[in-house]
C-alpha cells in the first residue's frame, strides 16, 4: 500500500486507464498545457500528447456535447468540467442528452462517458464558485453519480467509472485533494453503487459521503471521547444509491444522522432519511437528523462562509440529539 493524496489517486486512475486503453482521452479547459487548474492532469499532456489530452475553449456545452458524440462512436472520453459550478452551462447535454439517450432510443445508443467535476465550498470563492449541487444531478435517472471520500475509493471508483458503459458524473471535492490515505498498489476497481462502512460503532449510524466523511470522522473521534461509538456509512455513489449497509447499520443502532455539504432542502439527506423510514420504520428509535449547509448562497467572508458550512461540531450536536 502506498500513502498518497486524493489528487494523486485520481490522477493515477486516469493515467493507468489511459495506458491500458487508447480509446480513452481527456478533454476540458486547461487540462493540457496548464496541467489541470487543480493540477490533477499534470504531466498528462507531455506524456499522452495533444490528441488525447485536449484543451478546449471555454465552451461547457460543447465539451459535454462533443464528449457524448465521441462516446457514441466508441471512444471513451473523460470530460473535465473545471468546477461543478460550470456544469450548469452544460446542463442540457448532461440532463437531456447523456442521461436519456440510451433509454430513449431503445438501448441503441451507448455512451461510455465520464464527466469529472470538482465542487464544494470553504475556499472563499463566493456564491457562484462554491456550490455542492450533487443532489441536483443525482435526480436524473440514466446518469450515475459518484463522489468519493478517500483516495483509495477515488482511484477504484474512477477506474470503474471509466470502464462503465454508462455516463458517470464523478464529483470531487477541492478541499479533499490533499487528503492522504492508503491506496493499493495493484490494479483494482470499486464497483459503482456500493456503499461501505468506513468506521464501525454501535451507538449511532452516520450516513455521509465525500467531504461529509472527513467531517463525520472528526465528529466520531470527538464522540468517542465520551464513549459514544458512531458507525459511519459512506455512500460513495449517489445514484445508484446502495442502502444495504445503511439499513444494516441502522437496524443495529436505531438512530441515524445524515451529513452532507450541500443544502438540506431536497438533498441527499432527504432521500436517505425517507428510505430509512420506508425500509426500517420498525427500527426507528429517534427522528433521523440531517446536517447540511445553511440555506444561503455561500458568502465570501471566511467566518460567514464557515458558519454556513456543516462542521464536526454540528455532527456531534446532531448525534447527541438522536441519542
Amino acid at each position: 500500500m502506498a500513502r498518497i493524496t486524493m489528487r494523486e489517486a485520481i490522477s493515477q486512475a486516469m493515467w493507468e486507464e489511459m495506458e491500458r486503453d487508447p480509446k480513452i482521452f481527456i478533454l476540458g479547459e486547461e487540462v493540457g498545457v496548464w496541467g489541470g487548474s487543480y493540477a490533477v492532469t499534470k504531466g498528462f499532456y507531455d506524456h499522452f500528447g495533444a490528441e488525447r489530452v485536449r484543451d478546449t475553449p471555454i465552451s461547457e456545452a460543447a465539451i459535454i456535447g462533443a464528449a457524448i458524440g465521441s462516446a457514441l462512436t466508441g471512444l471513451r472520453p473523460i470530460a473535465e468540467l473545471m468546477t461543478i459550478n460550470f456544469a450548469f452551462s452544460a446542463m442540457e447535454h448532461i440532463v437531456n442528452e447523456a442521461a436519456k439517450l440510451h433509454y430513449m432510443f431503445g438501448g441503441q445508443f451507448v455512451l461510455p462517458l465520464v464527466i469529472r467535476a470538482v465542487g464544494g465550498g470553504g475556499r472563499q470563492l463566493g456564491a457562484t464558485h462554491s456550490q455542492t449541487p450533487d443532489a441536483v444531478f443525482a435526480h436524473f435517472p440514466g446518469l450515475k453519480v459518484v463522489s468519493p471520500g478517500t483516495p483509495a475509493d477515488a482511484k477504484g471508483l474512477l477506474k470503474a467509472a471509466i470502464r462503465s458503459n454508462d455516463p458517470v458524473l464523478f464529483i470531487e471535492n477541492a478541499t479533499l485533494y490533499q487528503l492522504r490515505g492508503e491506496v493499493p498498489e495493484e490494479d483494482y476497481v470499486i464497483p459503482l453503487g456500493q456503499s461501505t462502512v468506513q468506521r464501525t460503532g454501535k451507538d449511532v449510524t452516520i450516513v455521509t459521503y465525500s467531504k461529509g466523511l472527513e467531517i463525520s470522522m472528526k465528529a466520531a473521534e470527538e464522540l468517542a471521547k465520551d464513549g459514544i461509538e458512531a458507525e459511519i456509512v459512506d455512500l460513495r455513489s449517489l445514484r445508484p444509491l446502495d442502502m444495504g449497509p445503511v439499513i444494516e447499520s441502522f437496524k443495529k443502532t436505531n438512530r441515524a444522522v445524515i451529513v452532507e455539504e450541500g443544502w438540506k432542502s431536497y438533498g441527499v439527506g432527504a432521500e436517505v432519511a425517507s428510505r430509512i423510514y420506508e425500509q426500517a420504520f420498525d427500527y426507528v428509535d429517534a427522528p433521523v437528523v440531517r446536517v447540511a449547509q445553511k440555506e444561503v448562497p455561500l458568502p465570501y467572508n471566511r467566518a460567514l462562509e464557515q458558519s454556513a458550512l456543516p462542521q464536526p461540531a454540528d455532527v456531534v450536536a446532531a448525534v447527541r440529539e438522536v441519542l
Partner: protein
Amino acid sequence: MDKQKYLELYSQMVLIRRLEERGAELYQAGKIGGFMHLYIGQEAVCTGLIAARQPQDRVITAYRDHGVAISCGIPANQVMAELMGKTTGISKGRGGSMHMADVTRNFWGGHAIVGAQLPVAAGLALGDKYAGRDGVTICMFGEGATNIGYFHEALNLSKVWTLPVLWVCENNIYGMGTAVGRASAVSEIQQKAEGYGMEHERVDGMDVIAVYEAAQKAIAKVRAGSGPRMMEILTYRFRGHSMGDPERYRKQEEVKKWEEHDPIGAFHVYLVENNKATKKELEDIEARAMDEVQKAVEFAEASPEPSLDTLFDNVYVEEV
C-alpha cells in the same frame, strides 16, 4: 481634451495599479482570500472606456473587476474592504474580489461565470430602451468568453431587438493558459461581430487616449440609436490569470516585451513629451495614489467583520 482630463485618466490608472499591487501583497499575507484576478497591464481599457460614459450608462463586466469598480467611481476604501470581506465593502463582504457592484454608480457587477454577464447586459439595455431612457449598456468580457454560447445568444438578441449595448471585448490574448489562437476560430475577435451584422472596430488597449476617443464615438453612435456594436480592445495582462498561476503557457520574455508597452509608462511619456503635465505633477499623483491605497488598507483593516447573525440577510427581498 483639457489638461484636467488627462491628469484624471493618469491618476485613475495609477490608483488601480497601486491598489492591486497592494492587494497582491495582502493576498500573499492571507488577508484576502478566494480567487483574485489582477487587472495589471489592462488599466487603460477600463479607464479610457468608462471615462467616456455618461452617468446614465451602465457598466457590467466579469470577475476581473477591481479596475472597473474604481473607474465607475467606487472609492478605494470600499474596494479594499470588499477584498478583505468586511461589512464596509461594496458588496458587504459577501462578494469578494470577483463579485463587486454598485448600482448607485451604474456598475452592475462583477460576474464570475464566464460570459454570464452578456445576456444580462442585453436585458439591462432592454430595460432602458423599453422605458425610453437614453442610457447605453457597456458590457465588458474577455476574448475567452466569446467561445461560450452566452456570447452568441446575447449578440444575436441585441441585434434583433436593436438594443443599446456596446459590446467590449478585452482581448488580452489568454483565457487562463489558452492563447486565443488555440481556442477561438478567429483570433481577431471583432470578426465575430460580422456574423451578427454589427459594426465593430479594433483599438489599442495600451493607449488610454485611443480607448477613450474610440469609446466616445462608439457610445455616441449607440446612444443615437445605431443598435449594438462591438469594440475589440487589444491588451495584455502582466500578471498570472489569478493568484497562484504557474504560467507554464507563456514565456517571461513575452511578458517583458509587453511590459515595454505598459499603458501607464507610455501615458507618462506622452504627457511629459507633449507638455500636458510636468514630471512633478505626475509624481504628486503617484504619491496621492499611494496615500489613498494606504488609507484604504487602514480603513479596511479597521472595518468590522460581518456578524454571523446577518448570514441570511438578502437571500430574498421579502420575508420568508
